[in-house]
């Protein structure tokens, strides 16, 4: 029985990736660009989901991890003239280091206090970006030139500003992180994380150092969230302080809630759904946020577990 659901799980995930691959050649230009952006931000949501969905830790400061990746990659390219791979690694490393420090401090709290502490740290990070405007470009941000955004493999060069290259890079990042998430949640570590979410005291009384496990989860989540930040800087060529604002801490929470917390594909579905609801409604009315709000309320009322969470509950119990 277990093996059947495992096969289905892999078939589904590979199928989704294949579908996204095909969409590159089918979608009109505008939607191709939108999808590249959605996949990148879905990775952000997946990193958030790992902590929120599986460990049950609600952070309101994940914008700082995303923007650590964004600025870590963007500033090394802009100021130091680093190549794309080095800059990407620098961005991810910044996110990992920041997550370690924030985790050590914030995990001394729990519940509402954890939300507030993470939010405060993210605000500090945001204000630091504005304060060091000489280097970061402050609220104007910085634009990374097209010439800096080429990925060289020997003699072959990929221009990351090319729509197809950009789409495929985003898809590659998305696929890697999707399978990392899948591996983590199916692993023993994942089982411990879920146990902490369900009953931390009980988990401790089974001999687990729950604080160390939560710290590992914060670092993993922060690192994953930094990756799309770094990718965003390199693929879309813009780094700005708005990505560090509180809005970008709330958005991944909404995407995850919409798509379904503690599901591997929920973050993609949530991000996709919200982007398109915003996109379509803003074509009709300037009050599109009102419609987005109504859609959110309806979902909370009728599908509190999110889109995929409700599907799993009703029909597909094997979904990871």
């Amino acid at each position, binding site marked *: 029985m277990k093996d059947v659901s495992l096969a289905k799980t892999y078939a589904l995930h590979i199928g989704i990736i294949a579908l996204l691959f095909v969409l590159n050649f089918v979608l009109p230009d505008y939607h191709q660009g939108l999808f590249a952006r959605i996949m990148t931000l879905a990775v952000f949501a997946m990193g958030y989901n790992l902590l929120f969905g599986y460990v049950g830790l609600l952070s309101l400061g994940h914008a700082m991890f995303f923007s650590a990746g964004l600025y870590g990659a963007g500033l090394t390219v802009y100021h130091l003239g680093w190549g794309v791979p080095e800059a990407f690694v620098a961005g991810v490393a910044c996110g990992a280091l920041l997550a370690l420090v924030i985790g050590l401090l914030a995990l001394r709290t729990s519940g509402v206090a954890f939300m507030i502490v993470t939010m405060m740290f993210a605000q500090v990070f945001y204000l630091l970006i504005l304060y060091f405007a000489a280097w970061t470009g402050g609220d104007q941000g910085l634009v990374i030139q097209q010439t800096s955004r080429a990925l060289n493999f020997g003699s072959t060069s990929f221009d990351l500003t090319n729509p197809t290259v950009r789409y495929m890079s985003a898809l590659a990042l998305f696929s890697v992180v999707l399978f990392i998430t899948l591996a983590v949640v199916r692993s023993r570590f994942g*089982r411990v994380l879920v146990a902490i979410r369900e009953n931390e005291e009980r988990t401790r009384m*089974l001999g*687990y150092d729950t604080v160390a496990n939560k710290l590992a989860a914060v670092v993993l989540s922060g690192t994953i969230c930094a990756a799309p930040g770094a990718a965003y800087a390199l693929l879309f060529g813009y780094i700005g302080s708005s990505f560090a604002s509180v809005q970008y801490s709330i958005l991944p929470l909404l995407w995850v809630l919409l798509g379904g917390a503690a599901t591997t594909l929920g973050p993609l579905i949530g991000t996709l759904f919200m982007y398109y609801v915003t996109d379509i409604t803003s074509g009709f009315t300037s009050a599109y946020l009102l419609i987005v709000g109504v859609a959110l309320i309806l979902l909370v009322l009728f599908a509190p577990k999110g889109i995929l969470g409700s599907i799993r509950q009703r029909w597909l119990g094997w979904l990871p």
Partner: protein
Amino acid sequence: MTPLLTTKGLSRHFGGLRAVDGVDFALMPGEIRAIIGPNGAGKTTFVSLLSGRIRPSSGTIVFDGADITGMPAYRRVRLGVAYTFQITSVFANLTAFDNVALPVQRTLTDGRSKGQVRAGVMAALERTGLADRAGTLAAHLSYGHQRLLEVAMGLALKPRLLILDEPTQGLADSEIDNFIVLVREIAKSATVLLIEHNMPVVMDLADRITVFNSGKILAEGTPEQIRADVEVQDAYLGATHG
């Protein structure tokens, strides 16, 4: 023989209330010890101090020759002090299998092979008679089975000292008989300390009984000695039976 566990002057105060008050206690390896006493006597607080869930106000706890007074609970579990909860606290949204896999996977040293986890889990489930319910969500198990699952999780920790806090509470008579057999079985490989209100179970199982009253040890002895003790009868047995 040296005791497996001793406490010296162990106390825990909650404000002005002396829930546990200067308790000197010793537990021999391999015995089944029951702790009895009226409600509010400090029994659960006492075993919570032993397991590390709460910190003592004063006194020391020595387990297997090492002072564990200040040791965090999770490290005591790794030393072999396992605690099963008075209020059933299995992971309701996980299957019985996953509930037991959590303690099993931690005790495995190689930490890799999936087969070994499965074998360990099924062994613990079989000992408690839950093997055919491995795939059931814990929330969907009957209350009696949830209590057994709790014990299976304790067993899977391979404890040297298993602390059971009111394990038969809420069980039907038929389930209690099976439970007594199970505890005897466990006692072959571990020392058992149980808090229990059901007197027939205590008299049947325990090698020795410790009676708590107002945070202090009132009496200690074999079931026969305790049954004959007038003070105990006044404090506890008389109250429940008369």
